[in-house]
C-alpha cells in the first residue's frame, strides 16, 4: 500500500523544514520532498518603509547570516543612492563578511555537522548533537566554540552586537576600528588558523569512512552559480555572476549584478513555501535548470582562491571531482573549512591595510536611482536583494532570493537520493 513517511522537524539545519518520503505499493521510495514550512512575507511588509531601514529589517530574515542580508541590503541601497562608497567602508564591509564566514562555517562544522562526522551517522540520536560532542571530544568542541567566537567578536567590535548589528548603512558603514581593536583581532588569528587546520586534518583523516555518504548525499550533475572576482577568483562580497555546467564549461561569465534576472527565474510548487529558482535559459521542466549555490559551487566556479593556504587546500579539494566539477554536496564540509582558511587569510590581510583607518566611512546621498540590486555570497550561497523605490525613497517593491531558495531544487533532489539509497 502506498504510504508517506514524515520527518519533522528537520533539526540541525538553518531553517524550518520537513521531509516527506512517499513509498509505492511495493514499499519502494517513489518520491521524497523537502518542504519549507515557514512563510513570513518580508517582500510585502517592507513595502512602504524608507529604503535606509532595509538593512536593519532584512537582517531579521536570518539570525545565522544577518551580516549577509545586512550587506546585500546595504549594497542594494548603495545602488539607490547611485553613489560610490568610501574605500575604507568597502574594506570594513569585507572584513565583517569574512568574520561572518568564520562564525557561520564554524557553526556548521563544529556545532551542527561534527556530531555526524565524529560521533557517527548511526550514533544515538539522543546524544548525536553538540552536547554529545562536548562530552566525547571536549577539547575539540571548545576549540570549535572559540573559533566561532573569534568571528562573532569581530562582528561585535565593528557593530556593537554579534547578532543583528545596526552597522552597514546605505553609502557605507557607521563605525571603523581602533588600533587596540585590531590588536585584539590580530592576537586571535593564530589560534583560529590552528583550529581550522586541525579540523581540515580531522576531516581528511576520516574521509575514507564516508564513501557511502559521498555517493548519496547530493551526488548528481547540476549547474553551479555564484560570484567570482573580475579575475575569476573566489569572491564573497561583490563580484560578477558566473554559471558553470557539470562538465566544467562556463555558460555565463562576467555577468553584472543588474542582469541577474536574465539567468534566474522562480517557479512555485504547491507543497512548499520556498520558491524553486532555476537557470532561465535551460527552463524548469525536468530539472533542466537545476543549479547549486554555496561552498561547493563557489569552489567549483572560481579559477583560484587567491590566498596561499586556501589555494593549497583548493588544489586537493578539486581532485575529488576527478577532472570535472566536484559533484557531491558531501564535499561542502571540506569546502567550508577551505573557506574559513580563505576568510582568516583575508582578515589577516585587511587588518594590516592602512586604508581601514580612514575616517571617511559613508557617502551621503538621497534616492537618485529607482532600482537597487545587491548580490552577495552568503555562507550558504548566493543572495539577491532587489528594491524599487519612489522619488521620495519609499520602498515600492522588494524581491529577495535567499541562498537556501537557490538550492531548493538541489536539496529536494538530495533528499530523494538519500531516501532511495537508504530505504530501497
Amino acid at each position, binding site marked *: 500500500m502506498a504510504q508517506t513517511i514524515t*520527518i519533522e*522537524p528537520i*533539526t*540541525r539545519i*538553518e531553517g*524550518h523544514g520537513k521531509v*516527506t518520503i512517499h513509498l509505492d505499493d511495493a514499499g519502494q521510495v517513489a518520491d521524497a*520532498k523537502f*518542504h519549507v*514550512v*515557514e*512563510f*513570513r*512575507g518580508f*517582500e*510585502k*511588509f517592507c513595502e512602504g518603509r524608507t529604503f535606509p531601514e532595509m538593512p536593519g*529589517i532584512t537582517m*531579521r*530574515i*536570518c*539570525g*545565522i547570516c*544577518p551580516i549577509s542580508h545586512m550587506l546585500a541590503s546595504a549594497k542594494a541601497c548603495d545602488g539607490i543612492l547611485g553613489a560610490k562608497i568610501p574605500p575604507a567602508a568597502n574594506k570594513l564591509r569585507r572584513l565583517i563578511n569574512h568574520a561572518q564566514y568564520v562564525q557561520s562555517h564554524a*557553526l556548521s562544522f563544529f*556545532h*551542527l555537522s561534527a556530531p555526524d562526522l565524529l560521533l557517527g551517522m548511526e550514533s544515538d*540520536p*539522543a546524544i*548525536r*548533537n*553538540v*552536547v554529545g560532542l*562536548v562530552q566525547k571530544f*571536549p577539547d575539540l*568542541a571548545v576549540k570549535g*566554540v*572559540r573559533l*566561532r*567566537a573569534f568571528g562573532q567578536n569581530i562582528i561585535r567590535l565593528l557593530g556593537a552586537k*554579534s*547578532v*543583528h548589528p545596526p552597522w552597514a548603512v546605505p553609502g557605507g558603514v557607521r563605525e571603523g576600528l581602533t588600533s587596540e581593536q585590531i590588536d585584539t583581532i590580530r592576537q586571535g588569528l593564530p589560534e583560529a588558523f590552528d583550529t581550522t587546520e586541525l579540523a581540515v586534518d580531522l576531516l581528511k583523516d576520516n574521509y575514507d569512512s564516508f564513501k557511502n555518504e559521498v555517493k548519496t548525499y547530493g551526488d548528481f550533475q547540476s549547474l553551479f552559480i555564484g560570484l567570482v572576482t573580475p579575475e575569476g577568483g573566489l569572491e564573497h562580497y561583490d563580484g560578477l555572476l558566473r554559471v558553470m555546467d557539470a562538465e566544467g564549461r562556463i555558460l555565463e561569465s562576467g555577468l553584472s549584478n543588474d542582469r541577474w*534576472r536574465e539567468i534566474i*527565474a*522562480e*517557479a*512555485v*510548487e*504547491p*507543497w*512548499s*513555501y520556498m*520558491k*524553486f*529558482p*532555476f537557470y532561465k535559459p535551460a527552463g*524548469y521542466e525536468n530539472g533542466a535548470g537545476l543549479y547549486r549555490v554555496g561552498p561547493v559551487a563557489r569552489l567549483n566556479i572560481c579559477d583560484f582562491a587567491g590566498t596561499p593556504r586556501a589555494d593549497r587546500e583548493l588544489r586537493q579539494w578539486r581532485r575529488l571531482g576527478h577532472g570535472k566539477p566536484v559533484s557531491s554536496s558531501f564535499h561542502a564540509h571540506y569546502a567550508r573549512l577551505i573557506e574559513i582558511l580563505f576568510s582568516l587569510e583575508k582578515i589577516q590581510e585587511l587588518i594590516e591595510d592602512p586604508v581601514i583607518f580612514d575616517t571617511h566611512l559613508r557617502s551621503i546621498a538621497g534616492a537618485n536611482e529607482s532600482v537597487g540590486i545587491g548580490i552577495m555570497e552568503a555562507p550558504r550561497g548566493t543572495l539577491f536583494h532587489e528594491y524599487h523605490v519612489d522619488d521620495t525613497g519609499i520602498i515600492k*517593491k522588494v*524581491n529577495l532570493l535567499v541562498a537556501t531558495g537557490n538550492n531548493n531544487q538541489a536539496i529536494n533532489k538530495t533528499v530523494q537520493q538519500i531516501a532511495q539509497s537508504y530505504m530501497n
Partner: protein
Amino acid sequence: MATSTNSKPRLATVWLGGCAGCHMSLLDLDERIVDVLSLMDLVFSPVADIKKFPEGVDVTLVEGSVCNEENLHLARELRQKSKLVVAFGDCAVTGNVPGMRNRLKVNDIVTSVYTDPFYREGPGPVPQAEGGEIPVLLPKVVPLHQVISVDIYLPGCPPSPERIWAAVNAILKGGPVELPEEMRSFG
C-alpha cells in the same frame, strides 16, 4: 532549582516563527555554554535530533512568534509539558518583525508573492496549505503569551548573551527572574 527527578534540570529550546538569532545569542555565551550544558540536560532543541517534545521539561526557552498553526500546536504542547516557559527574545515577547505583516491581509500577501510575475517568472500554482504538507498561516502573527501562559519574559532582538546569562543563572538558583532595567528593554 527543584526538579521532578532530583537530577539535572531538563532544558528545552524551541524555535517558532523567527530567525534563529536568539539561539545564536545563546551560543554566544561561548565557553559558558559548556557550563550551562553541564548544569542542565538539553532534552529538545533545533540543534539536537529529538523529534518529539518530551514530557517533564523544567525550562523551555521559546524563540519566535506564533505565525502558523504548527507554531500554535507546538506552543500548546510545550506549555503542557514544561514547568517554566520563557518567551525568549522580542518575536516571542512582542511579535516583532514577523508581526510587521499584520497590517496586511495574509491572503493578499501570499497571492501577491506567488502570482505576480515580479516575484516569479516560472510556472506553478500557489502553495496549498489547507490539507497539504505546509501549515496554514494565522491571520495575525501573535506573541507567545497571547496563545499560552508565559512565566518569564526575556526581551531583545536578540537578547544579549549577558541577558541570557543573567536569566539562566536566576532560573538555576530557583529564584524569580528580575532583570535590571537596562536588561529588559525591547529591541
